[in-house]
């Protein structure tokens, strides 16, 4: 009657016959499902529910130079199919992170995607330099949705020049062979121009998208629900915005790898991102309600691909940009085979181009 779902690693078997590997710039990952920064800490807690080495990668909570308290509480409000958060980048600082978290991930055999965040271009360069020579580091994700303290708190990701300056500094300091992904904010007029600026500055790929700025007012206290007043909206509520961002950026930059995210809850949600142009996906907020979600999404994605006749995950990337495939049997050979009685000829209707 009741079915027990314990942790056992490896109980999710990707569909046989499907090659789930995906390449993000110079690195090939065994599969395209990752965690999202800030939604998986550094993997230890989720490892109680599944083997973190089974995912494509673990994207760690954005880390800063110094230990940081984050904001006051309340820090979250649930919203329809989403949530608002205002954590304020609480974290132990890069040194403690490297000693405790990154070394644990490396030990565990997981591929770590380290997310970094700073208040100045120099912070980002220093953080990147600290990552050199660290085992387990597969990729760097640069969270540029942070206020630039040298520019009146203007968020880097909202300005193509500031975004480019950060990415350039990170690329200079980055270890060779470790791709640098810029993580963009959807709260801009034209995400493509920010994407182009980042790629122009050397970004090896793009993570799309960060949260959308939102707000909730508590009608009992008559005050904003969050201590930080505004917060980042995430979850399925933002999925169509995220898919649109991936689509637009894929169209403008056909060869730049994209890590897509925003409200992925199922394998079919992940497939939407892939069809829009994502080379891999992150599962974020869904983990809060379902700690096993990343491995479940991986399994469901593999099945969804198999159901649609794919043999390789990579064949599905960006497919929605291609003209529709119309499954009409080929017409009679010009040399002149008789059509067999139950074969259909293509039919056209009046007014068709």
């Amino acid at each position, binding site marked *: *009657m*009741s*079915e*027990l*779902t*314990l*942790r056992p690693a490896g109980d999710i078997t990707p569909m046989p016959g499907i090659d789930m590997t995906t390449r993000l710039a110079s690195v090939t990952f065994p599969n395209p499902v990752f965690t999202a920064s*800030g*939604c*998986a*800490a550094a993997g230890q*807690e*989720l490892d*109680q*529910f599944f083997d973190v080495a089974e995912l494509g990668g673990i994207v760690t*909570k*954005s880390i800063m130079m*110094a*230990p*940081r*308290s*984050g*904001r*006051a*509480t*309340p*820090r*979250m409000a*649930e919203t*329809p*199919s989403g*949530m608002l*958060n*205002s*954590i*304020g*980048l*609480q974290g132990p*600082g890069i040194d403690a992170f490297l000693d405790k978290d990154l070394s644990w991930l490396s030990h565990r055999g997981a591929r770590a995607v380290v997310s970094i*965040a700073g*208040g100045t271009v120099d912070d980002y360069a220093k953080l990147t330099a600290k990552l050199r020579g660290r085992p387990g580091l597969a990729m760097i994700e640069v*969270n540029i*949705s*942070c*206020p630039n*303290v040298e520019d009146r*708190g203007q*968020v880097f990701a909202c300005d193509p020049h500031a975004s480019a300056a950060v990415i350039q500094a990170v690329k200079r300091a980055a270890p060779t062979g470790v791709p640098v992904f810029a993580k963009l904010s959807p709260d801009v007029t034209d995400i493509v121009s920010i994407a182009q600026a980042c790629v122009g500055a050397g970004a090896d790929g793009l993570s799309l998208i960060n949260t959308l700025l939102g707000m909730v007012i508590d009608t009992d206290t008559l005050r904003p629900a969050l*201590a930080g007043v505004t*917060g*980042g909206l995430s*979850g399925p509520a933002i999925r169509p915005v995220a898919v649109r961002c991936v689509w637009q950026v894929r169209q403008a930059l056909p060869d730049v790898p994209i890590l897509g995210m925003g409200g992925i809850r199922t394998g079919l949600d992940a497939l939407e991102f892939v069809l829009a142009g994502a080379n891999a996906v992150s599962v974020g*907020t*869904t*983990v*809060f*309600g*379902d*700690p*096993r979600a990343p491995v479940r999404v991986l399994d469901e994605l593999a099945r969804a691909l198999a159901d649609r006749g794919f043999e390789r995950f990579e064949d599905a990337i960006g497919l929605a940009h291609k003209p529709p495939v119309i499954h009409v049997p080929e017409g009679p050979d010009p040399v002149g085979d008789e059509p067999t009685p139950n074969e259909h000829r293509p039919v056209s209707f009046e007014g068709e181009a």
Partner: protein
Amino acid sequence: MPVQVQGEVLSIRKVGAYNAMTVVAPGMAELTRPGHFVAVQVGGPESSMLLRRAFAIYDVKERGVYGGTVEFIFAVHGKGTAWLAARRPQDKLDLVGPLGKPFRLPAQPVTATLVGGGYGSAPLLPLATALRERGCRVDFVLGAGSADRLFGQLDAKRIASSIEVTTDDGSLGHRGRVSDVLPQLLDRTGAEVVYACGPMAMLKAVSEQAAARDLPCQVAVEESMACGIGVCMTCVLPVVGDDGLTRLVRSCVEGPVFLGDRVRWNDIGSLPPDVVGSLNAAGGGH
């Protein structure tokens, strides 16, 4: 280590203003200690409510006719708990638990006072049983807004040496708050340890009254939680560590049970400048 279980509702019944729900959840009971909590998915698979709801575990049975069960007591508060109250036997329910750090039990057979506010008595009843099994004397103070919001007086009476009841409206027991009767009770019984669970304001008052008598006091807090498993950092509160420094710590994994004198009650919901890494108001990002 917590487990995620596709459970099945065994029973749901009204207990005064609350609901008592028992769920068949194999594998969870044997891991559970008093003070642990369980996180419940609400609204079904297509629910627009993404986050789990946390409830203190009241009772567990390792096995029975139906396999291991977990029971919790809940008040209808908003949409999620309203949905939960409408579940019926055999409905499926996804649980994660046991979560958090449970109450620590004294090594000696001491005299313990347990203070529960509203449904906060739920985790204290199994705690009382565990203390009695260790030869401890247990005295209860249970308080609530009104008589129908008291939970477990009969159980408490059976387990404990004494029980005092307070209600805000005077519908049962002493009219007033638990903190009105607690000091005399601590002195009269010669209490050596205090345990409490209930609203934050009550926990603060109990912690202060225990601290004034130099009594170790463990409290189970209730902070708003998004994940319950330690990955999101929403559930933090300012707690003084062994090194004397205050940090914002996660109540879901480092709590919900804390030492009452380590929690900086007056600073909950603000950001004291002496917190490690304190962010000044200009900081940002998420």
